[in-house]
Protein backbone atom coordinates (compact mmCIF):
# COMPACT_ATOMS: atom_id res chain seq x y z
CA UNK A 1 0.00 0.00 0.00
CA UNK A 2 1.25 3.43 -0.93
CA UNK A 3 -0.29 6.49 0.64
CA UNK A 4 2.00 9.10 -0.97
CA UNK A 5 -0.55 10.28 -3.60
CA UNK A 6 -2.90 11.10 -0.74
CA UNK A 7 -0.33 13.13 1.17
CA UNK A 8 0.66 14.91 -2.03
CA UNK A 9 -2.97 15.89 -2.67
CA UNK A 10 -3.83 16.79 0.90
CA UNK A 11 -5.19 20.18 -0.27
CA UNK A 12 -7.94 18.41 -2.21
CA UNK A 13 -8.92 16.49 0.92
CA UNK A 14 -8.81 19.65 3.04
CA UNK A 15 -11.09 21.51 0.63
CA UNK A 16 -13.38 18.48 0.61
CA UNK A 17 -13.40 18.43 4.40
CA UNK A 18 -14.38 22.11 4.49
CA UNK A 19 -17.28 21.49 2.10
CA UNK A 20 -18.48 18.44 4.06
CA UNK A 21 -18.42 20.36 7.33
CA UNK A 22 -20.23 23.33 5.77
CA UNK A 23 -22.87 21.12 4.20
CA UNK A 24 -23.51 19.11 7.36
CA UNK A 25 -23.64 22.00 9.80
CA UNK A 26 -25.75 24.28 7.62
CA UNK A 27 -28.32 21.59 6.92
CA UNK A 28 -28.40 20.53 10.58
CA UNK A 29 -28.86 24.12 11.79
CA UNK A 30 -31.67 24.96 9.35
CA UNK A 31 -33.21 21.52 9.83
CA UNK A 32 -33.31 21.94 13.61
CA UNK A 33 -34.80 25.44 13.30
CA UNK A 34 -37.54 24.01 11.08
CA UNK A 35 -38.11 20.94 13.23
CA UNK A 36 -39.09 22.73 16.47
CA UNK A 37 -42.21 24.50 15.09
CA UNK A 38 -43.05 21.46 12.96
CA UNK A 39 -42.88 19.18 16.00
CA UNK A 40 -45.23 21.47 17.91
CA UNK A 41 -47.68 21.42 14.98
CA UNK A 42 -47.31 17.63 14.80
CA UNK A 43 -48.55 17.26 18.39
CA UNK A 44 -51.70 19.24 17.60
CA UNK A 45 -54.95 17.27 17.86
CA UNK A 46 -56.42 18.97 14.78
CA UNK A 47 -55.87 16.63 11.80
CA UNK A 48 -55.72 19.61 9.42
CA UNK A 49 -52.67 20.84 11.37
CA UNK A 50 -50.82 17.62 12.14
CA UNK A 51 -51.79 15.86 8.87
CA UNK A 52 -49.53 17.82 6.50
CA UNK A 53 -46.61 17.57 8.93
CA UNK A 54 -47.20 13.82 9.23
CA UNK A 55 -47.19 13.49 5.41
CA UNK A 56 -43.94 15.48 5.21
CA UNK A 57 -42.13 13.36 7.76
CA UNK A 58 -43.58 10.12 6.36
CA UNK A 59 -42.32 10.93 2.88
CA UNK A 60 -38.85 12.04 3.90
CA UNK A 61 -38.32 9.24 6.42
CA UNK A 62 -39.72 6.55 4.14
CA UNK A 63 -37.60 7.23 1.04
CA UNK A 64 -33.83 7.05 0.55
CA UNK A 65 -31.87 10.29 0.90
CA UNK A 66 -30.24 9.52 -2.47
CA UNK A 67 -33.63 9.49 -4.22
CA UNK A 68 -34.64 12.75 -2.53
CA UNK A 69 -31.43 14.35 -3.75
CA UNK A 70 -31.95 13.09 -7.31
CA UNK A 71 -35.57 14.25 -7.22
CA UNK A 72 -34.47 17.78 -6.37
CA UNK A 73 -31.30 17.97 -8.46
CA UNK A 74 -32.43 16.27 -11.68
CA UNK A 75 -36.20 16.55 -11.18
CA UNK A 76 -36.45 20.27 -10.50
CA UNK A 77 -34.18 20.99 -13.47
CA UNK A 78 -36.87 19.52 -15.71
CA UNK A 79 -39.44 22.14 -14.67
CA UNK A 80 -39.97 25.06 -17.01
CA UNK A 81 -39.91 27.69 -14.27
CA UNK A 82 -36.59 26.36 -12.93
CA UNK A 83 -34.97 26.60 -16.37
CA UNK A 84 -36.03 30.24 -16.54
CA UNK A 85 -34.88 30.92 -12.99
CA UNK A 86 -31.44 29.36 -13.38
CA UNK A 87 -30.83 31.52 -16.43
CA UNK A 88 -31.39 34.54 -14.20
CA UNK A 89 -29.62 33.33 -11.09
CA UNK A 90 -26.28 31.67 -11.64
CA UNK A 91 -26.10 30.03 -8.23
CA UNK A 92 -29.04 27.74 -9.13
CA UNK A 93 -26.69 25.87 -11.47
CA UNK A 94 -24.52 24.84 -8.54
CA UNK A 95 -25.23 21.31 -7.27
CA UNK A 96 -24.32 22.45 -3.73
CA UNK A 97 -27.68 24.15 -3.15
CA UNK A 98 -29.67 21.10 -4.24
CA UNK A 99 -27.70 18.85 -1.91
CA UNK A 100 -28.15 21.37 0.90
CA UNK A 101 -31.92 21.53 0.28
CA UNK A 102 -32.25 17.72 0.21
CA UNK A 103 -30.19 17.29 3.40
CA UNK A 104 -32.07 20.07 5.20
CA UNK A 105 -35.52 18.66 4.41
CA UNK A 106 -34.36 15.16 5.33
CA UNK A 107 -32.88 16.09 8.69
CA UNK A 108 -35.85 18.36 9.42
CA UNK A 109 -38.20 15.37 8.97
CA UNK A 110 -36.18 13.07 11.25
CA UNK A 111 -35.63 15.77 13.88
CA UNK A 112 -39.33 16.67 13.87
CA UNK A 113 -40.22 13.11 14.87
CA UNK A 114 -37.46 13.03 17.51
CA UNK A 115 -38.66 16.25 19.13
CA UNK A 116 -42.32 15.24 18.83
CA UNK A 117 -41.54 12.07 20.79
CA UNK A 118 -39.78 14.13 23.43
CA UNK A 119 -42.64 16.66 23.67
CA UNK A 120 -45.20 13.87 24.05
CA UNK A 121 -43.10 12.38 26.83
CA UNK A 122 -43.54 15.50 28.96
CA UNK A 123 -45.13 14.76 32.31
CA UNK A 124 -48.60 16.27 32.20
CA UNK A 125 -48.32 17.38 35.81
CA UNK A 126 -45.62 19.87 34.79
CA UNK A 127 -47.93 21.46 32.22
CA UNK A 128 -50.76 21.56 34.74
CA UNK A 129 -48.51 23.23 37.29
CA UNK A 130 -47.42 25.83 34.73
CA UNK A 131 -51.08 26.52 33.90
CA UNK A 132 -51.91 26.88 37.57
CA UNK A 133 -49.18 29.49 37.79
CA UNK A 134 -51.01 31.42 35.08
CA UNK A 135 -48.52 30.98 32.25
CA UNK A 136 -49.70 31.47 28.68
CA UNK A 137 -49.41 28.62 26.16
CA UNK A 138 -46.40 30.20 24.52
CA UNK A 139 -44.70 30.65 27.86
CA UNK A 140 -45.43 27.05 28.85
CA UNK A 141 -43.69 25.87 25.69
CA UNK A 142 -40.77 28.21 26.20
CA UNK A 143 -40.18 27.61 29.88
CA UNK A 144 -41.50 24.13 30.64
CA UNK A 145 -42.12 21.83 27.68
CA UNK A 146 -39.28 22.64 25.29
CA UNK A 147 -36.35 22.75 27.74
CA UNK A 148 -37.17 19.32 29.14
CA UNK A 149 -38.05 17.97 25.68
CA UNK A 150 -34.66 19.03 24.28
CA UNK A 151 -32.98 17.28 27.15
CA UNK A 152 -34.85 14.05 26.44
CA UNK A 153 -34.24 14.37 22.68
CA UNK A 154 -30.46 14.72 22.97
CA UNK A 155 -29.39 11.04 22.70
CA UNK A 156 -31.59 10.46 19.63
CA UNK A 157 -30.49 13.75 18.11
CA UNK A 158 -26.82 12.86 18.44
CA UNK A 159 -27.57 9.75 16.33
CA UNK A 160 -29.23 11.98 13.76
CA UNK A 161 -26.14 14.20 13.57
CA UNK A 162 -23.91 11.17 12.87
CA UNK A 163 -26.44 9.91 10.32
CA UNK A 164 -26.31 13.27 8.55
CA UNK A 165 -22.50 13.30 8.53
CA UNK A 166 -22.51 9.87 6.88
CA UNK A 167 -25.36 10.82 4.56
CA UNK A 168 -23.43 13.85 3.35
CA UNK A 169 -21.08 11.48 1.50
CA UNK A 170 -23.91 11.13 -1.03
CA UNK A 171 -23.26 14.69 -2.19
CA UNK A 172 -20.27 13.34 -4.12
CA UNK A 173 -22.73 11.55 -6.43
CA UNK A 174 -24.06 14.82 -7.83
CA UNK A 175 -20.62 16.21 -8.75
CA UNK A 176 -19.89 17.93 -5.41
CA UNK A 177 -16.25 17.55 -4.32
CA UNK A 178 -16.72 16.91 -0.62
CA UNK A 179 -14.50 14.50 1.33
CA UNK A 180 -15.81 11.46 -0.53
CA UNK A 181 -15.69 13.37 -3.81
CA UNK A 182 -12.00 14.14 -3.20
CA UNK A 183 -11.32 10.46 -2.53
CA UNK A 184 -13.11 9.47 -5.74
CA UNK A 185 -10.97 11.91 -7.74
CA UNK A 186 -7.74 10.57 -6.23
CA UNK A 187 -8.90 6.97 -6.71
CA UNK A 188 -9.60 7.45 -10.41
CA UNK A 189 -6.53 9.62 -11.07
CA UNK A 190 -4.00 7.32 -9.38
CA UNK A 191 -5.96 4.05 -9.62
CA UNK A 192 -5.55 3.44 -5.90
CA UNK A 193 -9.14 3.09 -4.60
CA UNK A 194 -8.02 1.06 -1.61
CA UNK A 195 -5.72 3.73 -0.18
CA UNK A 196 -7.91 6.67 -1.20
CA UNK A 197 -11.09 5.36 0.44
CA UNK A 198 -9.32 4.04 3.52
CA UNK A 199 -7.75 7.48 4.08
CA UNK A 200 -11.11 9.21 3.77
CA UNK A 201 -12.74 6.58 5.97
CA UNK A 202 -10.23 7.40 8.71
CA UNK A 203 -11.12 11.10 8.45
CA UNK A 204 -14.86 10.36 8.75
CA UNK A 205 -14.11 8.04 11.66
CA UNK A 206 -12.26 10.81 13.51
CA UNK A 207 -15.03 13.35 12.91
CA UNK A 208 -17.67 10.84 14.05
CA UNK A 209 -15.94 10.06 17.31
CA UNK A 210 -15.13 13.71 18.01
CA UNK A 211 -18.85 14.45 17.64
CA UNK A 212 -19.82 11.50 19.84
CA UNK A 213 -17.36 12.75 22.47
CA UNK A 214 -18.85 16.24 22.23
CA UNK A 215 -22.35 14.91 22.76
CA UNK A 216 -21.16 12.89 25.77
CA UNK A 217 -19.84 16.11 27.35
CA UNK A 218 -23.12 17.87 26.57
CA UNK A 219 -25.07 15.00 28.13
CA UNK A 220 -22.92 15.18 31.26
CA UNK A 221 -23.73 18.87 31.47
CA UNK A 222 -27.44 18.57 30.77
CA UNK A 223 -28.00 15.48 32.88
CA UNK A 224 -25.91 16.70 35.80
CA UNK A 225 -28.97 16.58 38.07
CA UNK A 226 -29.50 12.89 37.26
CA UNK A 227 -25.99 11.76 38.22
CA UNK A 228 -25.72 9.91 41.49
CA UNK A 229 -23.90 11.98 44.10
CA UNK A 230 -20.96 9.74 44.77
CA UNK A 231 -19.18 11.90 47.36
CA UNK A 232 -22.31 12.21 49.47
CA UNK A 233 -22.99 8.49 49.47
CA UNK A 234 -19.45 7.22 49.73
CA UNK A 235 -17.42 9.29 52.17
CA UNK A 236 -17.83 10.29 55.76
CA UNK A 237 -21.23 11.95 55.55
CA UNK A 238 -23.31 8.82 55.99
CA UNK A 239 -21.19 7.84 58.97
CA UNK A 240 -21.52 11.24 60.55
CA UNK A 241 -25.29 10.97 60.44
CA UNK A 242 -25.28 7.78 62.49
CA UNK A 243 -25.51 8.35 66.21
CA UNK A 244 -22.29 7.42 67.92
Amino acid at each position, binding site marked *: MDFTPIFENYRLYLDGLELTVKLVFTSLAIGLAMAVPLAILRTSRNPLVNGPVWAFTYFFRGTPLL*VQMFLLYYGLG*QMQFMIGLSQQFDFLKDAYWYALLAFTLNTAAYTTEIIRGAIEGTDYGEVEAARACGMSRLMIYRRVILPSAFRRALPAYSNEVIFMLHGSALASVITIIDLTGAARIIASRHYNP*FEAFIAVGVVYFCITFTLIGGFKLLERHWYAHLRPREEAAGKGKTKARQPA
Partner: protein
Amino acid sequence: MEGFEVLIDYMPRLLEGAVVTVEVAFVSLAIALALGLMTASAKLSKSRLARTVAGIYTTVIRGVPDLVLMLLIFFGGQIQVNNIGAYFGWDYIDVDAFTAGTLTIGFIFGAYMGETFRGAFMAVPVGLLEAGYAYGMSGRQVFLRILVPQMMRHALPGLGNNWLVLIKATALVSIIGLHDLVLNAGQAGGSTRLPFIFYLFVAFAFLVFTTLSIWALRWLEKYYSAGVRRA
Protein backbone atom coordinates in the same frame (compact mmCIF):
# COMPACT_ATOMS: atom_id res chain seq x y z
CA MET B 1 -49.47 15.41 -17.07
CA GLU B 2 -47.79 13.90 -20.11
CA GLY B 3 -45.33 12.00 -17.93
CA PHE B 4 -47.74 9.29 -16.89
CA GLU B 5 -47.93 7.65 -20.34
CA VAL B 6 -44.13 7.52 -20.47
CA LEU B 7 -44.12 6.01 -16.98
CA ILE B 8 -46.38 3.19 -18.19
CA ASP B 9 -44.18 2.61 -21.27
CA TYR B 10 -41.16 2.16 -19.00
CA MET B 11 -43.02 0.10 -16.41
CA PRO B 12 -41.40 -3.28 -17.34
CA ARG B 13 -37.89 -1.78 -16.85
CA LEU B 14 -38.92 -0.18 -13.59
CA LEU B 15 -40.43 -3.41 -12.29
CA GLU B 16 -37.26 -5.32 -13.21
CA GLY B 17 -35.34 -2.78 -11.18
CA ALA B 18 -37.75 -3.09 -8.28
CA VAL B 19 -37.17 -6.86 -8.24
CA VAL B 20 -33.40 -6.29 -8.08
CA THR B 21 -33.87 -3.82 -5.21
CA VAL B 22 -35.94 -6.35 -3.26
CA GLU B 23 -33.37 -9.09 -3.97
CA VAL B 24 -30.52 -6.92 -2.75
CA ALA B 25 -32.51 -6.10 0.38
CA PHE B 26 -33.26 -9.73 1.27
CA VAL B 27 -29.79 -11.09 0.49
CA SER B 28 -28.20 -8.30 2.55
CA LEU B 29 -30.67 -9.00 5.36
CA ALA B 30 -29.63 -12.66 5.41
CA ILE B 31 -25.94 -11.69 5.60
CA ALA B 32 -26.67 -9.07 8.26
CA LEU B 33 -28.66 -11.49 10.43
CA ALA B 34 -25.92 -14.12 10.27
CA LEU B 35 -23.19 -11.56 11.04
CA GLY B 36 -25.36 -10.00 13.75
CA LEU B 37 -25.85 -13.31 15.56
CA MET B 38 -22.12 -13.97 15.35
CA THR B 39 -21.24 -10.49 16.60
CA ALA B 40 -23.65 -10.72 19.51
CA SER B 41 -22.31 -14.14 20.51
CA ALA B 42 -18.75 -12.84 20.23
CA LYS B 43 -19.53 -9.79 22.36
CA LEU B 44 -21.03 -11.97 25.08
CA SER B 45 -18.38 -14.68 24.89
CA LYS B 46 -15.70 -15.34 27.49
CA SER B 47 -12.91 -15.07 24.93
CA ARG B 48 -11.22 -11.72 25.07
CA LEU B 49 -10.08 -12.00 21.44
CA ALA B 50 -13.64 -12.53 20.19
CA ARG B 51 -14.88 -9.54 22.21
CA THR B 52 -12.10 -7.30 20.88
CA VAL B 53 -12.67 -8.30 17.23
CA ALA B 54 -16.43 -7.73 17.55
CA GLY B 55 -15.81 -4.39 19.29
CA ILE B 56 -13.50 -3.16 16.53
CA TYR B 57 -15.96 -4.31 13.86
CA THR B 58 -18.96 -2.43 15.31
CA THR B 59 -16.90 0.69 16.08
CA VAL B 60 -15.45 0.94 12.56
CA ILE B 61 -18.86 0.45 10.94
CA ARG B 62 -20.41 3.19 13.08
CA GLY B 63 -17.61 5.60 12.19
CA VAL B 64 -17.48 5.34 8.40
CA PRO B 65 -20.22 6.33 5.90
CA ASP B 66 -21.88 3.45 4.05
CA LEU B 67 -21.10 4.96 0.65
CA VAL B 68 -17.36 5.10 1.42
CA LEU B 69 -17.41 1.46 2.55
CA MET B 70 -19.26 0.44 -0.58
CA LEU B 71 -16.82 2.25 -2.89
CA LEU B 72 -13.94 0.74 -0.92
CA ILE B 73 -15.25 -2.81 -1.25
CA PHE B 74 -16.34 -2.43 -4.89
CA PHE B 75 -13.31 -0.65 -6.36
CA GLY B 76 -10.67 -1.55 -3.80
CA GLY B 77 -11.88 -5.11 -3.32
CA GLN B 78 -11.62 -5.74 -7.05
CA ILE B 79 -7.93 -4.90 -7.04
CA GLN B 80 -7.18 -6.86 -3.87
CA VAL B 81 -9.04 -9.95 -5.08
CA ASN B 82 -7.05 -9.94 -8.29
CA ASN B 83 -3.78 -9.34 -6.47
CA ILE B 84 -4.49 -12.44 -4.41
CA GLY B 85 -5.65 -14.22 -7.56
CA ALA B 86 -2.44 -13.38 -9.39
CA TYR B 87 -0.43 -14.78 -6.48
CA PHE B 88 -2.20 -18.14 -6.66
CA GLY B 89 -2.34 -18.09 -10.46
CA TRP B 90 -6.14 -17.82 -10.76
CA ASP B 91 -7.94 -16.26 -13.70
CA TYR B 92 -9.36 -12.74 -13.55
CA ILE B 93 -12.18 -12.67 -11.02
CA ASP B 94 -14.89 -10.08 -11.51
CA VAL B 95 -16.38 -8.61 -8.31
CA ASP B 96 -19.80 -7.70 -9.67
CA ALA B 97 -21.95 -4.92 -8.30
CA PHE B 98 -24.51 -7.31 -6.83
CA THR B 99 -21.90 -9.15 -4.75
CA ALA B 100 -20.13 -5.99 -3.65
CA GLY B 101 -23.43 -4.24 -2.85
CA THR B 102 -25.01 -7.03 -0.83
CA LEU B 103 -21.74 -7.78 0.99
CA THR B 104 -21.30 -4.14 1.96
CA ILE B 105 -24.88 -3.63 3.11
CA GLY B 106 -24.87 -6.96 4.93
CA PHE B 107 -21.54 -6.09 6.55
CA ILE B 108 -22.79 -2.67 7.71
CA PHE B 109 -26.10 -3.87 9.09
CA GLY B 110 -24.46 -6.91 10.67
CA ALA B 111 -22.90 -4.48 13.14
CA TYR B 112 -26.22 -2.83 13.98
CA MET B 113 -27.99 -6.20 14.20
CA GLY B 114 -25.22 -7.34 16.54
CA GLU B 115 -26.05 -4.56 18.99
CA THR B 116 -29.76 -5.38 18.78
CA PHE B 117 -29.21 -9.10 19.35
CA ARG B 118 -26.80 -8.49 22.21
CA GLY B 119 -29.48 -6.59 24.12
CA ALA B 120 -32.06 -9.24 23.30
CA PHE B 121 -29.79 -12.13 24.40
CA MET B 122 -29.23 -10.46 27.73
CA ALA B 123 -33.01 -10.09 28.23
CA VAL B 124 -33.50 -13.87 28.26
CA PRO B 125 -33.35 -15.22 31.84
CA VAL B 126 -30.37 -17.52 32.42
CA GLY B 127 -32.62 -19.98 34.24
CA LEU B 128 -34.34 -20.88 30.96
CA LEU B 129 -31.03 -21.81 29.38
CA GLU B 130 -29.92 -23.75 32.45
CA ALA B 131 -33.20 -25.69 32.34
CA GLY B 132 -32.42 -26.59 28.73
CA TYR B 133 -28.98 -27.90 29.67
CA ALA B 134 -30.51 -29.78 32.59
CA TYR B 135 -32.70 -31.67 30.11
CA GLY B 136 -29.53 -32.74 28.31
CA MET B 137 -29.79 -30.42 25.32
CA SER B 138 -26.60 -29.57 23.48
CA GLY B 139 -25.37 -25.96 23.17
CA ARG B 140 -26.76 -25.79 19.64
CA GLN B 141 -30.14 -27.07 20.75
CA VAL B 142 -30.35 -24.59 23.60
CA PHE B 143 -29.45 -21.80 21.19
CA LEU B 144 -31.99 -22.74 18.51
CA ARG B 145 -34.84 -24.02 20.67
CA ILE B 146 -34.74 -21.70 23.66
CA LEU B 147 -32.54 -18.65 23.17
CA VAL B 148 -33.60 -17.61 19.65
CA PRO B 149 -37.39 -17.98 20.05
CA GLN B 150 -37.25 -16.19 23.41
CA MET B 151 -35.01 -13.35 22.34
CA MET B 152 -36.87 -12.63 19.07
CA ARG B 153 -39.59 -10.85 21.00
CA HIS B 154 -37.02 -8.46 22.50
CA ALA B 155 -35.05 -8.12 19.26
CA LEU B 156 -37.96 -7.42 16.91
CA PRO B 157 -38.46 -3.68 17.51
CA GLY B 158 -34.76 -2.97 16.92
CA LEU B 159 -34.58 -5.45 14.09
CA GLY B 160 -37.56 -3.79 12.42
CA ASN B 161 -35.91 -0.38 12.61
CA ASN B 162 -32.72 -1.79 11.12
CA TRP B 163 -34.70 -3.40 8.31
CA LEU B 164 -36.41 -0.10 7.44
CA VAL B 165 -33.02 1.65 7.26
CA LEU B 166 -31.58 -1.26 5.26
CA ILE B 167 -34.26 -1.03 2.56
CA LYS B 168 -33.36 2.60 2.02
CA ALA B 169 -29.63 1.84 2.02
CA THR B 170 -30.13 -0.46 -1.00
CA ALA B 171 -30.51 2.68 -3.13
CA LEU B 172 -26.71 3.03 -2.85
CA VAL B 173 -26.09 0.04 -5.15
CA SER B 174 -27.22 2.21 -8.07
CA ILE B 175 -24.03 4.26 -7.56
CA ILE B 176 -21.80 1.25 -8.26
CA GLY B 177 -23.77 0.48 -11.40
CA LEU B 178 -26.22 -2.24 -10.38
CA HIS B 179 -29.47 -1.95 -12.38
CA ASP B 180 -31.80 -1.54 -9.46
CA LEU B 181 -34.94 0.58 -9.28
CA VAL B 182 -33.05 3.86 -8.77
CA LEU B 183 -30.61 3.39 -11.67
CA ASN B 184 -33.27 2.15 -14.12
CA ALA B 185 -35.53 5.06 -13.25
CA GLY B 186 -32.61 7.46 -13.60
CA GLN B 187 -31.79 6.17 -17.07
CA ALA B 188 -35.44 6.30 -18.12
CA GLY B 189 -35.67 9.84 -16.75
CA GLY B 190 -32.53 10.81 -18.62
CA SER B 191 -33.61 9.51 -21.99
CA THR B 192 -37.14 10.92 -21.77
CA ARG B 193 -35.99 14.17 -20.14
CA LEU B 194 -38.62 13.67 -17.46
CA PRO B 195 -36.54 12.76 -14.39
CA PHE B 196 -38.99 14.24 -11.89
CA ILE B 197 -41.82 11.85 -12.65
CA PHE B 198 -39.51 8.82 -12.60
CA TYR B 199 -37.82 9.68 -9.33
CA LEU B 200 -41.20 10.45 -7.82
CA PHE B 201 -42.25 6.95 -8.83
CA VAL B 202 -39.13 5.54 -7.13
CA ALA B 203 -39.91 7.49 -3.97
CA PHE B 204 -43.45 6.11 -3.86
CA ALA B 205 -42.21 2.58 -4.57
CA PHE B 206 -39.94 2.88 -1.50
CA LEU B 207 -42.87 4.21 0.54
CA VAL B 208 -44.83 1.09 -0.47
CA PHE B 209 -41.92 -1.15 0.60
CA THR B 210 -41.59 0.55 3.98
CA THR B 211 -45.34 0.60 4.60
CA LEU B 212 -45.71 -3.12 3.79
CA SER B 213 -42.71 -3.83 6.04
CA ILE B 214 -44.27 -1.94 8.92
CA TRP B 215 -47.43 -4.05 8.60
CA ALA B 216 -45.45 -7.29 8.41
CA LEU B 217 -43.38 -6.30 11.44
CA ARG B 218 -46.51 -5.53 13.44
CA TRP B 219 -47.81 -9.02 12.64
CA LEU B 220 -44.48 -10.61 13.58
CA GLU B 221 -44.39 -8.75 16.87
CA LYS B 222 -47.83 -10.07 17.70
CA TYR B 223 -46.74 -13.60 16.74
CA TYR B 224 -43.65 -13.58 18.93
CA SER B 225 -45.46 -11.94 21.84
CA ALA B 226 -47.99 -14.78 22.11
CA GLY B 227 -48.26 -15.77 25.73
CA VAL B 228 -46.92 -12.48 27.09
CA ARG B 229 -49.40 -10.48 29.10
CA ARG B 230 -49.38 -6.77 28.47
CA ALA B 231 -49.42 -4.50 31.46
